[in-house]
């Protein structure tokens, strides 16, 4: 039986690179990525699973990293905003100013990235269903909505090439 006590050491892949990290057994994935590894892109806000600012991809699936033990990602693939490199979603958020203060942006982008990988032509219902998991406290939803539309166009262009 696997057993973990007090301080643990664990290996997982973060943004394509294998990392080996030590942390306390009760630390969340968000805490370990931000405070042990030092990638500050994903934010902690409500720490209650409500706001989505902490959204990371676990094996390509969005999760609320504030509600997950870091131990849950042992041997698995985690992606944060630092792992995205000039994707259509990022480009679209810049073009359409899909942010105001920017605090929620990384969470929105990670969720949108997963959504458009799963549904490149996501309609309004799918988009609402997925992105209702994230909250923009500046209420900048119009820019975010425009950014998603633009991201779909960019992806369609890429696929057409």
């Amino acid at each position, binding site marked *: *039986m696997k*057993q973990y006590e007090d301080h643990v050491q664990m290996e997982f892949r973060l943004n394509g690179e294998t990392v080996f990290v030590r942390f306390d*057994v009760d630390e969340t994935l968000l805490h370990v990525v931000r405070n042990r590894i030092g990638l500050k892109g994903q934010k902690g806000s409500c720490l*209650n699973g409500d706001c989505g600012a902490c959204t990371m991809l676990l094996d390509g699936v969005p999760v609320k990293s504030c*509600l997950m033990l870091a131990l849950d990602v042992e041997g698995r693939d985690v992606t944060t905003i630092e792992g995205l490199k000039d994707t259509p979603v990022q480009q679209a958020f810049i073009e359409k100013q899909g942010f105001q203060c920017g605090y929620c942006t990384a969470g929105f982008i990670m969720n949108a990235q997963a959504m458009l990988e799963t549904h490149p032509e996501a309609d309004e219902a799918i988009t609402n269903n*997925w992105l*209702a*998991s994230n909250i923009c406290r500046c209420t900048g939803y119009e820019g975010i909505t425009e950014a998603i539309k633009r991201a779909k166009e960019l992806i369609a262009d890429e696929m057409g090439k």
Partner: protein
Amino acid sequence: MNKLYRPQTFEELTELLKDYPDKPLFYSGGTEIMADYRLRKIKQAAWIDIKQLPGMIELSDDTIGACVPLNELISPRMFYDVGQFVADRTVRNHLTIGGNVCGKLPFREAVLPLLAMEAEVTIFSEGEMIRQRLEDRFDKFLRLEPGELVYQFHLDRSERPYRHNRYTTSSVVDYPLMTYLAVKADRGYFVGLSGYGSVPQYGWFDEWKQDDIFNHFQAVTNDRGSSAYREKLLRIELAKGAPDEAV
């Protein structure tokens, strides 16, 4: 918490529970536990991660492992309709059906389709697997003794006529003022409600008599809405007709 165990077999779990006989904390998706832990509502120093036990994530035509995330439950259609409103989509990627049914929150919406489909539940108890009707174990909440663990749900997943609606105070992502599920089955009409009272309520009815069904349920007044408002919502849903009537 300073210890986490990951038993790989039920034999290991049986041995482990001998050391923690009172109220072991079973961890899976973590969505409710981690929120409570942050608020220091959880006292257990040792947690038992149940995800790697065999069968816990099984998903087949007639079996749903307790650790299956809600987003993976898309058939029958009523499962999807009820499940897609629990928490939000990202949370549902790791919010499990067992966690929802056994959770401390009063809504436990995922239990409604299970009850409507007359599901059975297998519970790991003192080294044995006990399979019985979910209805026999569910009275306001799933009745579990310390150390008992929900293992799997079993059901016939064929489609049945149903009606479903969900009311919240404002946004879609919110706890329900009332979740309504009405299903026509061989046994009769099932009506289940979440958010209407302080616990999920349901009943089976031979005939679709609105007053009889309405009087079966007790509405609650809380900071989300009054009992009168909830009663009005239930009247509206019942007036839409039986689930097997043409829409």
